[in-house]
């Protein structure tokens, strides 16, 4: 008997029954966008409101100035249509030399302040984890209330990876003291588009 069959033989459980209790979700009071922003900030991310998507390249330039970043920039193909001439990024995925990545979130989750990043040809995953600085564009209209709402995207499109990102990388592995920038981005900056 294969390992599979011998394990399954022991696990006999009968047909799944329908559970009666409705799934429980914590209350989300007030404006979901405001909650989203305050949760993200509590997780050590910074946020900036922009009126139009077209303002993103200027915001990226300003961010690079403010943080004195002169290195290469990579932008997700989903944002390729913007006027990037002032920044001169590569469009696509990235390698370890890029110090700023710009990507587009599919949605946000108010309950936790999480960005919902889907892998795909227009939204490569490396941008989320390799660069020191991660800038993420998210439309306020896409902010959802609960985790469950975001996870519906799994059923809908089943990307290779769905990453919920809530703040920059961190570790507390030395003496339970929180230190940002363990392996992923040291800084997460969110551009909210009306």
């Amino acid at each position, binding site marked *: 008997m294969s390992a599979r069959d011998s394990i399954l033989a022991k696990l006999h459980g009968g047909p799944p029954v329908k559970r009666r209790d409705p799934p429980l979700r914590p209350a989300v009071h007030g404006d979901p966008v405001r909650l989203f922003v305050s949760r993200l900030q509590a997780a050590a991310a910074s946020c900036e409101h922009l009126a139009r998507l077209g303002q993103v390249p200027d915001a990226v330039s300003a961010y690079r100035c403010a943080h004195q970043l002169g290195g290469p920039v990579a932008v997700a193909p989903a944002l390729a249509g913007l006027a990037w001439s002032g920044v001169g990024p590569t469009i696509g995925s990235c390698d370890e030399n890029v110090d700023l990545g710009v990507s587009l979130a599919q949605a946000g989750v108010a309950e936790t302040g999480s960005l919902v990043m889907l892998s795909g040809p227009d939204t490569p995953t490396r941008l989320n984890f390799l660069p020191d600085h991660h800038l993420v564009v998210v439309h306020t209209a896409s902010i959802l209330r609960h*985790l469950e709402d975001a996870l519906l995207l799994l059923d809908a499109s089943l990307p290779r*990876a769905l990453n919920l990102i809530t703040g920059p990388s961190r570790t507390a592995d030395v003496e339970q003291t929180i230190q940002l920038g363990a392996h992923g981005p040291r800084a997460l900056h969110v551009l909210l588009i009306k």
Partner: protein
Amino acid sequence: MGKGSPRDFKRQAGVALKDPALRIALGRARSGFVEKRTQARRQLPEFDRLCAAATRVRDHSIDHLDTLLVRFEQEVLAAGGQVHWAATAAEARQIISGICSDAGARVVAKGKSMVGEEIALNPALEADGLTVVETDLGEYIVQLAKERPSHIIAPAVHKTREQVAALFARRHEGPRRDLSGIPELVDEARRVLRRAFLSADVGITGANLLIADTGTSVLVTNEGNGDLCATLPDTHVVIAGIDKVVANATDAATVLRVLARSATGQPITAYTSFFSGPKRAEDLDGPKHFHVVLLDNGRADIRQGRYRDMLRCIRCGACLNHCPVYTAVGGHAYGAVYPGPMGAVLTPLQWGLRESRDLPNACTLNGRCADVCPVHIPLPALLRQLREDIHDAKVEGRMQRWLLGRWVRLALQPDRYRRVTAQVAGLLRRLAGARGRVSRLLPIPGWGRGRDMPAPAGKTFFQQYRTPSKSSGDRS
């Protein structure tokens, strides 16, 4: 330290209590865990109800493991991944070793995985000639120090920053540099481990949950190391216990809500990722090959017996952080992969009662672990049950068996029992003196080094019971 055996718990605990650096490290970490969880709970009015919901989700999973695992397998295959079943640790090692050799791998980057520890994966891969690099900072520290994790979510919690600095200075190349602060330590590890990520041929991660409906493996981290393991190398291998599966995304959300809060006090960790198969044809990045290894290693047997509730465990670590024994002796004293209350239940079930008979007895039955367990595992009851099983299996120590026999005989003779207990109480009161605390028991050397005990009340219960009270109010 850190490579002991559960058989030696008593000796290892004694050594731990005398280790000054361990006392400092555990002291610096302990309050953090407890406070962060308390705060997270206070900030979410529904917390207790959410725990009850998570408990129901996990119960449902354990009841229907067979259907859920088969569904999970179907979905992974449909997404282009592969699923492997391992009945034992040895089978799991063999499977992963085979995947690495098929990939022509030389370097393996690992995300933290307790199942990886359980099956002792690293030594097996190293024996194949592979370079295996742990990439979670805590796990990397214990790998460098040739130890094992002492906590299921904070592997290096037993080390002070000074010890980590000395370790890095010794093991990393480079000129003399400042390693005095935590930021410098984290930066140095980041620099060293980046190279490992970029050169790795295979990335191996654990999974906090598996979602049956979509064939998804869920990974919860704060560092982002697991995501780099799952994104950069050409092959991604997930190893998970068969107990980890839940039915659907809604169930996963229910568990995630209480997992991070119970573990680190965060509403959600920095990264919670959902992996379903290899890179799609049009994707610009991601692994070409995706494997999930499902490990039984005793879980199916636990499910059939009286310890079934233990399978609900979501490995949050809250029971460790709130356990007076764990926080006094640290994780290495347990001499097993899983320490603390959850480990004191799992270790005897996985490794045998005789080998681990001291672990269930190293519990004060104070019940704090069960109070903080987000999936309501009755840990003290399971530990009591194990004590009975150990007694029935006649595998406890001879001294313990003899003492227990004496005590039973004494307790069956009420007059003698009263006389003896009154004498012992009087003796203890004299030992305690004015402070009212007993911190030395003459025949047991070292007893008071890590604890003391209040002196007994003025009279035994029976003596008080016999004395007529002045008024009924006195007895309140």
